[in-house]
Structures are given as C-alpha cells and as structure tokens.
C-alpha cells in the first residue's frame, strides 16, 4: 500500500480514518492533560490562550473569513444575533471560495439549539472544543497547549466557587485584556460569584446522578439534565443577552470555551463512573463538519468522540459520581413483538383501523390467541405506539380500541378501550434533525385475555384510532408503528 503523502492527507482529510488523522497530526503521544484554570498549569495555559485569542482576532493574518479566526469559530456555534448567516456570508465572502463553502457548512451548527436531537449536545460540543483547542495549539505554536476548564461548581466555601478566573477580568492587562468582555452580568467582572443571591444551588452537578444518557420515562437523562440545568444556568448567570446569556452571542466570549471544557469534563466523569452513552447507529454514525488546526475541512463522527482516551486527552481531575444506579433487572425479558404494523398510519378526521400481523419469526404461524393463552405468568402484554409525527398539533386526543367491531349496537366501546394518545411535541423532522422520540405503552394484558376469552381476538389484531373531536385540518398526524408486545 502506498504511504500517505502530505498532499494526499490534506486533500483527503475528510476521508481518512480518524485514528490515522490523529496520528498524522502528531497526537499519538503522551495524552494531553486539561487543567483546572485556577491551577498552576491552568494559569500557564491561559497565557497561551490569551495570546492566541488576540492573534485569531487580528487581520491580515486572521481575517474574519479565515476558518481559524475568532469570528469563524464564534459563528460555528451561531452567527451573532444582530444579523443573519446569509447576510454575514455575503458580507465576509463577496466571492465564491473554499472558505465560504466551509462557512456555509459549519456556521449555525450548534447542537441542539435549532430543534436537532438533544443527544447531540454533548458530542457536538466535545468536537467543537477539540478542534478549537487544536487551532489554539497551532496558532500559538505551543504544541503542549490544552484548554483549561472553569470549575464553577467547586464546593463552597472554596473562594473559587462561581468566580470567573481572574485572567478574564483584567481589562487593562497587556497580556490578558483579550479575555475580557464587558457585557457580562454585573459583578462578574469584579469577581462576584455568578450565583450570588441565588437560592438553592444553580451550579450543582446533580446531573451526574442521572442513570441514563437519554430520557427514560419522566427522567430527562444526563445529557438533557446537564444541558438545560447547570450548562444553561452558567450561561445565563455569566452574561447578558448580547453575551453568554444568549446562544448567538455566547461563543464570542473567551470564557465560553472554558465553560464547555468543564461540561466536557463532567461528561467524561459520568462515563468514568461506568454510565453508558447511546449505542444506536443513528447516533454513532452522525457526522458534523469542523475546521482542523490548519483550517481544513474535516468530518467528525460521533463514534470517534465518545472516549477521551481515544482522543488522546484526559483531565487532571474528574468529578466524583456518588449515587448508585439500579442494575438492569436480571429477570427482565426482552420485549417481543407478537403482531405489528410497521407502515405509517395516517390519521384522519374519523376513526382509522390498523391491522397488525405477526412479524417473520419461527413462531409466526402460532395463532395469536394461543400465544396469549400460553403467556407466562410473569409476562405482560403492551400496545406500543411509536414515531408520532404531525405538521402541527391536531389539538385533540386520539382514543385507541382493540378489536372494536365496526357496528356494535348496544355494545359499549369501553370493553375494547386501550387508552389515549396526543401529539404534543411530535413535530415533523426538519433541516438539522428533529425526529420523533415519543412513544406510548399501554398494558393490555387483561384486555387481550378478556377479548380472547370471548372469542373476539383475531390473529390479525385490529387497532382502531379515533379522534376525540375535530382535529386541526393542517395537522396530518401519522403514527409510524404500532405493535402488541410481550415482555
């Protein structure tokens, strides 16, 4: 096999295996260590950081259109709120160029502030910080640079609790002035803790106690709890609506990166405690575009960014995770679909009937009634309704019935009643992601057995879905899949 040349590497940076790309960039060496910004090592790194920030803001070496410029990196998160991405592309790139193409791909891609799947919040920001750090390393010439983290949650009475590092408050300092921003909240730039006067503990790391990454029932999971809790609290408490407190302005402030370095550290801490990231292929294979340390386009895949050891860095200190999560029940059976309808069911203004049939399996020929009769004592039956989508809210509930006769004079529908669903929060997917995470599960064990006993359960179980009222005409609700599941 012909060796990679530098020419082929640069040309094909988006295509080579990530591990090889790391090696080619000289990162296959002793792991980098990211330090607390208040530590001796962290303070040394902040000197490099301040110099690099100044360089990245200074033309002609770093014009705004340069992928390694401060503006370009800021806009990758989101373009400033006083204008639009389209307007800035036209202003900064009056002519077509490779940089313009890259900006078109990269700007406004912060996850998940425009309706993308929430699970992308942590890996996208890990990638963002990773490539930004590599740019600082290259721009500064300090090949050992690592981005420090801002540990605002350090326990009281530590004087550093909630206090922005002093290097970010030195407006007149010839070295650290680039780290100063005046639009932070009152008191922040004078060393007041950002949570001063707040009841309870907005800087708590309670998100670490979550046992799953994604939502589980009523628990929002680690990613969302961290994003909407501590992460968002720090943004709002640090800066105003033209600074850290607003998504389109936040990444202009140099403290943004230290904040997200700390968020990344908390994710690493959660994983180090044995808690697992999602393993579905959609999540693992998701790609985002970034600029590497040379300003060249790279594709970053989530699966390559789930383990910081593989990225060749670690933290000087991880946060302890103190609670215990219940182990998966050893006796919990995997759910088994008895009958299903996997094709989308479009709902209308009147009742819709969906026929469920047995998926291909060795037991598919066994009559449904027989399988229910032989149901183990510790197994239950569930009607599971998944992948709900609607253009707009139908603004009605939908009632579900199992094996409801078409005409049943004198017979009440309640004998067949399963439950009701709504389409609250089930918007259609759009550019940048979205998708339907919502599902309903109804325990129909008793209902199915009663219907079977009366001889009313057929092999192709039929589900009737009826709106309770007049749905909004433009709603176009759809159910992606309905199954009768044994577990």
């Amino acid at each position, binding site marked *: 096999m012909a060796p990679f040349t530098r020419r082929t590497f640069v040309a094909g940076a988006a295509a080579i295996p990530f591990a090889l790309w790391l090696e080619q960039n000289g990162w296959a060496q002793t792991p980098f260590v990211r330090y607390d910004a208040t530590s001796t090592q962290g303070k040394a790194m902040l000197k490099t950081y301040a110099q690099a920030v100044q360089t990245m803001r200074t033309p002609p070496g770093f014009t705004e259109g340069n992928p390694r410029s401060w503006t370009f990196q800021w806009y990758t998160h989101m373009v400033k709120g006083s204008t639009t991405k389209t307007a800035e592309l036209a202003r900064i790139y009056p002519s077509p160029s490779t940089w313009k193409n890259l900006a078109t791909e990269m700007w406004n891609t912060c996850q998940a502030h*425009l309706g993308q799947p929430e699970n992308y919040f942590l890996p996208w920001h890990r990638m963002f910080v990773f490539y930004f750090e590599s740019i600082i390393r290259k721009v500064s010439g300090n090949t050992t640079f690592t981005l420090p983290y801002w540990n605002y949650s350090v326990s009281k009475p530590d004087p550093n609790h909630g206090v922005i590092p002093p290097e970010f408050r030195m407006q007149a300092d010839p070295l650290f002035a680039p780290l100063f921003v005046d639009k932070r909240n009152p008191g922040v730039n004078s060393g007041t803790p950002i949570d001063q006067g707040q009841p309870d503990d907005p800087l708590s790391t309670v998100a670490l106690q979550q046992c799953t990454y994604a939502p589980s029932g009523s628990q*929002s999971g680690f990613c969302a709890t961290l994003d909407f*809790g501590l992460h968002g*609290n720090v943004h*709002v408490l640090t800066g105003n609506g033209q600074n850290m407190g607003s*998504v389109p302005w936040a990444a202009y402030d140099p403290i943004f990166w230290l904040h997200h370095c700390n968020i990344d550290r908390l994710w690493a801490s959660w994983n180090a405690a044995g808690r697992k990231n999602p393993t579905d292929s959609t999540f693992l294979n998701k790609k985002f575009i970034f600029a590497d340390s040379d300003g060249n386009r790279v594709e970053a895949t989530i699966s390559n960014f789930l383990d910081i050891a593989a990225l060749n860095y670690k933290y000087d200190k991880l946060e302890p995770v103190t609670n215990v999560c219940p182990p998966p029940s050893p006796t919990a059976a995997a759910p088994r679909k008895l009958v299903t309808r996997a094709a989308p069911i479009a709902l209308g203004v009147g009742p819709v009937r969906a026929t469920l049939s047995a998926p291909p399996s060795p037991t598919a020929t066994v009559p449904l009634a027989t399988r229910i009769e032989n149901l183990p004592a510790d197994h239950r039956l569930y009607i599971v309704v998944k992948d709900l989508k609607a253009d707009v809210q139908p603004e009605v509930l939908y009632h579900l019935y199992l094996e409801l006769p078409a005409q049943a004079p004198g017979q009440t529908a309640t004998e067949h009643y399963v439950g009701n669903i709504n389409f609250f*929060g089930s918007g259609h997917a759009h550019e940048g992601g*979205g998708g339907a995470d919502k599902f309903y*599960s109804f325990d129909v064990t008793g209902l199915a057995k009663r219907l079977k006993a009366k001889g009313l359960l057929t092999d192709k179980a039929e589900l009737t879905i009826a709106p309770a009222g007049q749905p909004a005409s433009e709603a176009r609700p759809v159910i992606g899949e309905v199954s009768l599941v044994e577990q």
Partner: protein
Amino acid sequence: MEPERALARAEKVKLAVGPTTVALDGPGVASRINALGSRRLFLILRGLRASQPPGVLYHLYFNLPQGATPAGDDPRHAGIVNFYAAQTGDAASTDADRIFYSFDVTEVVQALRARSQLRDPLTVTFYPVGGPDPGAKVVISRVELVEQ
C-alpha cells in the same frame, strides 16, 4: 420501566416580570400523592419559549403563598429553570415541545405532606431572581406533575 401517570397539569403558562403562580389542574392531587408508595414524582416542563432571553433564572416553588418571598433554603423549592436553550422566534415550532425539563420532586412533596402543607390545588410559582428583560415574552407550553 414503570409507566408514568400524569397527576395534574397546567397549560400555556405565561411568565410575568414578577413571580407567576399557576395551579396544577388535577383531581385530588394531595390524596393521590398520599398513595404514591414507592413511585417517584416528577415536575415536568415542556415547550419553553422566549421571544428573547429573559436573562435570569427562575426558581420553582410549590404552594408559595401570594406575595411571599421565599427563604434561601425554602423547603418548597422544587427546581431551577433557565431559558438559554429556549426556542426563540421562528425556531419556536412544535420541536420545542419535544424537549422536557424534569425535576424529581418526590422528597419536596413528601416533606410538604409531613408538614401538612400539601393541599389542593397544588400550585407552582416561577420566581425570577433579578429583573427579567421586560421585553422577553416567556411561555411554557405545559407544566405537569407526573408519577412513575
């Protein structure tokens, strides 16, 4: 996973510049909480939207009397919400409703019951700390108490 059950809810909650109190509509919430057993209670917020960032945190309290100023360690404190990630402007589509903020309030509610402070209707007060931007129109599509 245990199925979840909504006990009470309020819809389309608009936050004012000062504290905003909403009653969670649901029959006999207090008595149903008495029968909780080993299940947990969650306060769930869906569909957070703001026309612009209000710029403050909102602290949530159960059954805070009208006009009361909560103490720093108030036992009725249920959670903290920020609007940093709230969908704004044209992005405020139905997608905002998919995302939910969840607070395990089991201990808070049980403590209220122990002090005989649990009563119907259960109210939630959104208490801003600091002055929200008066131009920020802040809405929460649904506030719900769920047991699981």
